[in-house]
């Protein structure tokens, strides 16, 4: 019996050893944001089909998770590119540098709008950022220098022009990049419009952020998971509810849902591209310069991504809901990508 056990163990170890040698990789490995995922995969697929290189592997790990993997080191076992729905943080640049990754190329992909919308069967709302903040903040100033738990239960409590329905908003959980961006752009933007908080921002930035970034937990805001499709389905079933989701889901489901105006502007392709619609963020990807030329195809992948066919005004990425940058900005990032210009914070 012992010999049988031994041979089994030896076989298992042998199995590990044979495959265990970290072999040279001939395929680009991309990790990162689930928001950039549909765009990165579209480029990867076209790149794989139109060149002799293998199709890159694209993992959806979230922006933070992707940067963590990316900054873990140089070598075939570490990813070559990471996608992010926000800019790299200086703490992450430092972490990268600690692991020997000093040369990083930053490429901005384009813009993504974040929509607060409802079912088509309900009336379209026109909100301001301040109203969004008042509807969703956990605590709001009580007017006497203190804070009270958000007292607003109905939209009409905030402003008489808003409908007389319960505030019910479905949105992504705190782990999501969409949530981060929404909090930063819409909530913080709204908080700045309130005088008390504006003053607080000047005196104590941390305290301001604590107030501006806290979303209420009394049931008016429902965490609906990372899956935006699910939010769309729930909105369809409940016309009184609102949802927070990425623009590409509005684009694909324009027969079922509508985006609310924010600051008087509808979330349309044009408005987001012009910067008129305020709740939009930039998408990025980061390339490890040390891997260019080592992993075959990295440079060519950059060429494909920055081609007009892909991220141009009428490129295939716009069909997937990407909002392209203006031409000059695109040219600048293309030049940086081609020249492998180092990231400057």
């Amino acid at each position: 019996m012992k010999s049988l056990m031994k041979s089994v163990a030896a076989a298992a170890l042998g199995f590990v050893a044979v495959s265990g040698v970290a072999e040279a990789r001939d395929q680009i490995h991309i990790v990162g944001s689930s928001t950039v995922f549909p765009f990165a995969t579209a480029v990867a697929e076209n790149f794989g089909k139109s060149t002799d290189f293998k199709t890159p592997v694209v993992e959806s790990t979230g922006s933070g998770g992707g940067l963590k993997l990316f900054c873990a080191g140089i070598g075939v076992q570490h990813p070559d590119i990471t996608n992010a729905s926000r800019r790299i943080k200086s703490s992450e640049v430092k972490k990268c540098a600690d692991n020997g990754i000093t040369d990083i190329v930053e490429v901005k992909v384009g813009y993504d709008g974040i929509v607060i919308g409802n079912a088509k069967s309900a009336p379209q709302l026109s909100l301001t950022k301040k109203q969004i903040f008042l509807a969703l903040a956990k605590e709001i100033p009580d007017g006497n220098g203190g804070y009270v738990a958000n007292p607003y239960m109905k939209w009409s409590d905030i402003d008489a022009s808003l409908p007389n329905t319960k505030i019910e908003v479905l949105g992504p959980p705190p782990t999501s990049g969409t949530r981060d961006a929404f909090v930063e752009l819409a909530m913080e933007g709204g908080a700045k419009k309130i005088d008390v908080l504006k003053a607080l921002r000047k005196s104590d930035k941390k305290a301001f952020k604590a107030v501006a970034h806290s979303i209420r937990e009394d049931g008016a805001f429902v965490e609906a998971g990372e899956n935006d499709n699910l939010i769309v389905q729930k909105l369809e079933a409940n016309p009184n509810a609102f949802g927070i989701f990425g623009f590409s889901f509005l684009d694909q489901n324009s027969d079922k849902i509508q985006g609310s105006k924010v600051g008087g502007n509808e979330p349309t392709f044009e408005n987001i591209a012009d910067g008129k619609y305020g709740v939009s963020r930039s998408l990025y990807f980061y390339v490890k310069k040390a891997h260019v030329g080592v992993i075959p195809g990295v440079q060519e992948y950059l060429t494909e991504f920055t081609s007009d066919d892909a991220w141009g005004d009428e490129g295939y990425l716009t069909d997937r809901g990407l909002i392209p940058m203006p031409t000059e900005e695109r040219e600048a990032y293309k030049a940086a990508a081609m020249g492998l210009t180092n990231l400057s914070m």
Partner: protein
Amino acid sequence: MTDTTPNAVPPKSVTTASSERVAATLAKRHAAEKRFRMYGIGAIGLALTFLVILFGSIITQGYSAFWQTEIRLDVHIDEGEFASGEYADIRQASFNKMLRASLREVFPDVTSRKDKKELYKIISSGAKYELQNMVVENPDLIGTTVSFWMAASDDVDMLNKGYIDRSLPESDRRLSNFSIGLVDTLVEKGDLKSAFNTRFFSNADSREPEQAGIWGAAIGSFWTLMVTLLLSFPIGVAAAIYLEEFAPKNKWTDLIEVNINNLAAVPSIVFGLLGLALFLNWFNLPRSAPIVGGMVLTLMTLPTIIIASRAALKAVPPSIREAALGMGASRLQVVTHHVLPLAMPGMLTGTIIGMAQALGETAPLLMIGMVAFIADIPGGPTDPATALPVQIYLWADSPERAFVERTSAAIMVLLGFLIFMNLAAVLLRKKFERRW
């Protein structure tokens, strides 16, 4: 069924009293039994209702994915597009150009740039690769005109399947009136049909819903399960035999037993984290590879297999062991010649159930990079791959409408595999089960 005691004949008065008591409570007890049965039927009925709702919603949503709208075009494969010479690559020719030319031929009235753009969008953006593959396989086609059916774009497919409502205002639809007009013309000409969706079964993942298939994920699942089976079956069975037949009963073996039972209940994501730390960071195995997936799932299925195998070994009556020992067999011979063959059906059943469980897992694969977009079909256990349940998860999260039906169709395929595996386990048990 009655409560009368089987003792010696009781005095008459007692019999009457007890039978009266019986008669008094009989109706109540019958009612209680009936109620209990009703609860049982109710519980099963409820479970079945949910099952029917689940299957019903999946099937009604997903059956349409087995059909794909195709468009026929006469494409002239222009010789001039191909570079000549020894090293010329057929793939470098612009097949897109040829397809666009033939589309313009079908609709000569379409002239404005905007309209042309919409016209080009009615066929799948993968159609050029379909044409390319055809020409690569048969270079004699160069210079001829071929008439072939290519996939329509996902929006046209959705229109043809009735998921796009024509009565809505134009701005609320994915397809404009102009595009719908083009599609209707093709239908009139008989150049648009619904065909069995072979792409769904032969392609790997794609960002174009009409080109996306489950074959890549199915092969990934196959390699993963192969590795799992090769590792977990021998290790699991050997561990079970040792613990059941050879190990002394003491504190240590008790501790091991408690730990094995405990491991069976550990959330599967924990095994993924272990796999990340051990196999990827320490052994430097490749990310996203089925070999690592298989090893992680081995850790997950081992407890199931060990527990089932031990139960199967326990079910072999001791008389068989004693008889073999009495005939002079060694303990190893007792196990290999007598006990193991008798316990094998039970062990195999446990293994198949463990494998079926592993087939449906996504959480441990997340940590080791198998939740990824992989457009190439994996050729072996070290190639990047994904698995069937992961494919379902990725499609469910895609914005394109056409992925909704494909998600459901992929669930049907996965359910098919699971039903097949569990059925095999049941049949195996029925065929080889022995009763003593």
